[in-house]
């Protein structure tokens, strides 16, 4: 059995498990429904006369500017965090449950090596991430187009849609190192705890002003969540560093699965 044949077999198995996964189904539904709804809804709220007090202050950035561009700006900001959470929960399940339930032990001594199974899990996760992010941005763009057309405003542009896709992919890709966390901790809940801890640490790092070099802060900052100045401070090296976390995470977890023992 060649490496390519083994990878094809592992991809077929992991794709089927993803399609049957309750975690993936819930995460997909939440992303595809809530992000577009939140993007269009928050802009509508920011521009309505009902927005007063603290809500108006928090949504102030969305009260002005081109309507469709603002929809996609909010989409990018929400997606940069929501994709991290969705993929983080999925990899906690995909990798952690094999070790918790004992099926990881049954993956020893097979014609398809464990490292190949882990690689297939990563590739299937990334394919799912790309599908979700593209779908979310497409639904948001369509909803935005309907609202903008009804208001006589310009339709959404490709550049904003492209940025929203980029923010979602960067955010979701940052979750792959948690596959390694799931392997080391052998716990789904432990992995989710680490994910929540990382979100908290990111907040602290951003508050201390060190965001651009902290990969987990980059997608949100780049999408403008920290304001225009913080977004402008995010350059190509920062984006490359954040983007590198996915392949680094995948390499780490494949290595860990190759060396797995006492299972």
């Amino acid at each position: 059995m060649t490496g390519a044949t083994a990878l094809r077999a592992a991809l077929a198995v992991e794709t089927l498990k993803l399609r049957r996964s309750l975690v993936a189904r819930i995460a997909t539904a939440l992303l595809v429904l809530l992000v577009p709804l939140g993007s269009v809804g928050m802009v509508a709220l920011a521009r309505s006369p009902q927005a007063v007090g603290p809500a108006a202050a928090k949504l102030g950035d969305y009260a002005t500017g081109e309507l469709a561009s603002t929809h996609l700006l909010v989409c990018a900001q929400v997606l940069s965090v929501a994709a991290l959470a969705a993929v983080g929960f999925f990899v906690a399940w995909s990798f952690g449950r094999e070790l918790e339930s004992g099926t990881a032990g049954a993956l020893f001594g097979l014609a398809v090596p464990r490292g190949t199974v882990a690689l297939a899990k990563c590739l299937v996760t990334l394919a799912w991430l790309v599908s979700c992010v593209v779908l979310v941005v497409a639904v948001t763009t369509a909803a935005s187009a309907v609202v903008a057309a009804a208001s006589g405003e310009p339709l959404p542009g490709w550049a904003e849609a492209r940025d929203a896709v980029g923010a979602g992919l960067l955010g979701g890709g940052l979750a792959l190192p948690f596959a390694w966390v799931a392997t080391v901790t052998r716990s789904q809940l432990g992995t989710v705890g680490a994910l929540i801890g990382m979100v908290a640490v990111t907040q602290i790092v951003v508050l201390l002003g060190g965001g651009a070099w902290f990969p987990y802060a980059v997608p949100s900052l780049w999408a403008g969540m920290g304001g225009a100045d913080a977004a402008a401070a995010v350059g190509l090296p920062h984006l490359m560093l954040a983007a590198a976390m996915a392949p680094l995470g995948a390499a780490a977890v494949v290595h860990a699965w190759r060396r797995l023992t006492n299972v």
Partner: protein
Amino acid sequence: MPALLLDDVSHTFGGRVALDHLTLTARPSQVTALIGLNGAGKTTALRALAGRLRPTRGAVGVLGHDPADLPAHGAVRFGHVVDAPLVYPELTVTENLRCAARLHGLMRQDAASAADAAVGRTGLDPWRHTRANALSTGNRQRLGIAGATLHHPTALILDEPTSALDPQGVVLVRELVRGLADGGAAVLVSSHHLDEVARTADEIVVLHAGRQVGRLEPGGADLEQRFFAMVLAAESVT
């Protein structure tokens, strides 16, 4: 050459000795049964053979290879169910078997036919489209054994394969194990069911405190008596 080999293997968990200079072999065309009390080291020995545990000392071999790093040409001839089987609760019986077949190295078409044959062989036909999380414990055990044997391995390890089975399932697994051994496979089975062992095994190895304390002939009505006599004798020595 033995198909399955533990050569002077020792292993400890923390300070507790699980395997103590254990040497064990399983030869082609034979069913070797491993019996012992709880904690005797049966599952630890099988985990080492499956490559899931690197023992503190000694050598482990499966079809002449280190099981922790089994090459593909060896892996396609090896099967095992130790503790949790390769069964995913969200997949149906057929889907689980097709996945197992693919992971055992079968191509897509062959995997489908091997899965169908395994469903029939293990009496799972009424549940072929049922998700594994809706199966009884016994049927899940049948499914695990079906997945580990659908590629007709020449070296097979089964840990307590009949622990949750009804009498019909016990007979099915007995016939499956005997059939594989008669076809040339080396089968190593751990069990608490001495009656079942007496019916299936060609040789019986008694394990106590991580050591092999003797061998028993499968025949005869007093197997239980001979087993306890052997264990008590080993206990008095230690």
